[in-house]
């Protein structure tokens, strides 16, 4: 095997250098793309339409003809984009007897019920209500269920559904509802 002379080595070295530079460039490009992707997903996460609901206080007022549920809640918008609360519904699951399938009723929030509750101090939430990006709103949500609907039934669970302008619901299960006199 003949040893390569300098003139023969030059193109080989140049080719190797070109390959090395290309590899570095490819790596750099892929890094930049990865960073772009990361930024894009962060941006998308910021624009995700996401509301969350937090319960501050829950009360039940038992009237002769109806039950009024009052919940003091705060609703947070985790997105950078604005959103709007369209409706707040209380979902009550109940059973007539242990063997029967569960029934449910989902009354909507009625702010005018606040007039009937003297004990309620907080201001009822007026809907629809705009929430700016990264903002939180709070207020009282009130629901009336006629006594006839829940007569002879045992309530199994309560759930609050906050429905936004995109028809998506932020839900929360309510475990304790304390009974209060009017």
């Amino acid at each position, binding site marked *: 095997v003949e040893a390569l002379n300098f003139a023969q080595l030059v193109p080989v070295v140049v080719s190797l250098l070109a390959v090395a530079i290309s590899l570095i460039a490819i790596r750099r490009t892929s890094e930049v793309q990865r960073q772009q992707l990361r930024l894009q997903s962060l941006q998308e996460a910021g624009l995700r339409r996401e509301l969350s609901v937090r319960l501050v206080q829950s009360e039940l007022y038992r009237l002769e003809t109806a039950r009024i549920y009052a919940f003091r809640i705060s609703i947070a918008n985790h997105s950078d984009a604005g959103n709007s609360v369209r409706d707040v*519904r209380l*979902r009550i699951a109940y059973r*007539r007897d242990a063997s*029967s*399938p*569960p*029934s*449910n*009723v*989902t*009354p*909507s929030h009625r702010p005018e019920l606040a007039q009937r509750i003297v004990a309620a101090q907080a201001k009822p939430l007026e809907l629809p209500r705009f929430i700016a990006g990264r903002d939180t709103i709070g207020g009282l949500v009130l629901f009336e269920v*006629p006594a*006839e*609907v829940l007569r002879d039934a045992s309530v199994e669970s309560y759930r609050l559904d906050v429905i936004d302008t995109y028809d998506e619901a932020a839900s929360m299960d309510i475990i304790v509802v304390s009974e209060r006199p009017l």
Partner: protein
Amino acid sequence: VSVPWWKRRGKLEINLQHKGEGDAVPIASDAAMISRGIADGRLIPVIILDTSARPDIDDMIRAHVHFGPGDATSAWSVPSWNKVVLILTVIHPSRCVVIISFDVVRQASIVDQIVQTQALYIMAGRPGDRLIAKLEEPRICVEIPSAEFRPTWEKLFFNAMVKDFRAHGVPRSEAKDRVRAYIAEWRELTSQRMKSEHDAESDEAPE
């Protein structure tokens, strides 16, 4: 006519709250009623469901009485040539899935009325209940948009009726013409409208 697989539409996903919701609710009886001012004064079919195994349907109808009009979605399904299934998902004020199965031959008249009027009254009852004895009982009127289903129903209805006529001894050559005449007469009979107060006034008004 069985619906060929290439004509079948996509699957419909329904969130059931309990196992029983996926079963068809038996029909105790059916009828039709006409009310001035409702559905343009047309004859609307009434179905009394046997809800002995589904007290949640009783509760759903009761909830409508107290909370007023609600929201519901509906879908038609054709699982076989002689079965048509109506899937109702009541969303508000009470969430409930009601599946009603119809025999295309035996209950064609009621399905046809639902498809034509795009509305249906639902009542809760027990086997043997009749509308005449339950006129004061609560019922809900559900809108059933059927424009998309209508062409499929026309074919099902026609072919099922032809089969039925032939089974009753009508010769093959005559069956199709007699079914066409029967359907036309049936539609004319069921498309009768009760005039609204406004219509009655405009009829009386001098020209």
